[in-house]
């Protein structure tokens, strides 16, 4: 039964590794954010879920169940909170005037964008 937990944790580590590769190799901030946000979120959620399953292998006492519930709560909170934080950071970068990368260096839309949006 413990191979299920170890398999989930290994998949989570794989997602972490792909997130780091994207963080190091992509050309601009928005693409790095794209890779990191998904790899980070899913990696942490999968590793925490695997640890919760691994913790339940020691028996179904009330303490073990409480710890696993807390681990699952961290995972669910992380699954909601990380995309929110990433989105806020991305919005802040766009408003601060960081241009997205293009192949020929020319912006695709009118740059800087008009300041008509409400913040």
């Amino acid at each position, binding site marked *: 039964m413990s191979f299920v937990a170890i398999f989930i944790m290994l998949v989570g580590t794989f997602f972490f590794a792909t997130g780091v590769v994207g963080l190091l190799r992509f050309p601009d901030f928005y693409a790095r954010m794209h890779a990191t946000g998904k790899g980070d979120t899913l990696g942490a959620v999968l590793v925490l879920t695997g640890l919760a399953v691994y913790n339940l292998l020691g028996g179904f006492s009330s303490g073990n169940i409480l710890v696993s519930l807390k681990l699952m709560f961290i995972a669910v909170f992380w699954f909601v909170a990380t995309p929110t934080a990433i989105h806020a950071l991305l919005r*802040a970068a766009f408003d601060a005037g960081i241009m997205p990368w293009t192949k020929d260096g020319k912006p695709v839309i009118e740059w800087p964008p008009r300041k008509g949006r409400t913040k």
Partner: protein
Amino acid sequence: MGILILLSLYRGVFGPTVFDRIMGVGFVGSKTLVILVLMGFIYERIDMFVDIALAYSILLFASTLVVAKYFQTRGAT
């Protein structure tokens, strides 16, 4: 996992913009969270470490939001 932390710390230190640094620090923090829970299993004090990890995750989320809002009004340097 430690190797991954060092690699993303590279982006946190040498990132071209300030937002790259914030993102690198956030990424280091998320892996620190996982390592914290793993340390709880290694030391067999998981009931204590899981509370620390819970508080740490909430703190990380709030700090990222606050820093993003601050640099949104201030502008990137």
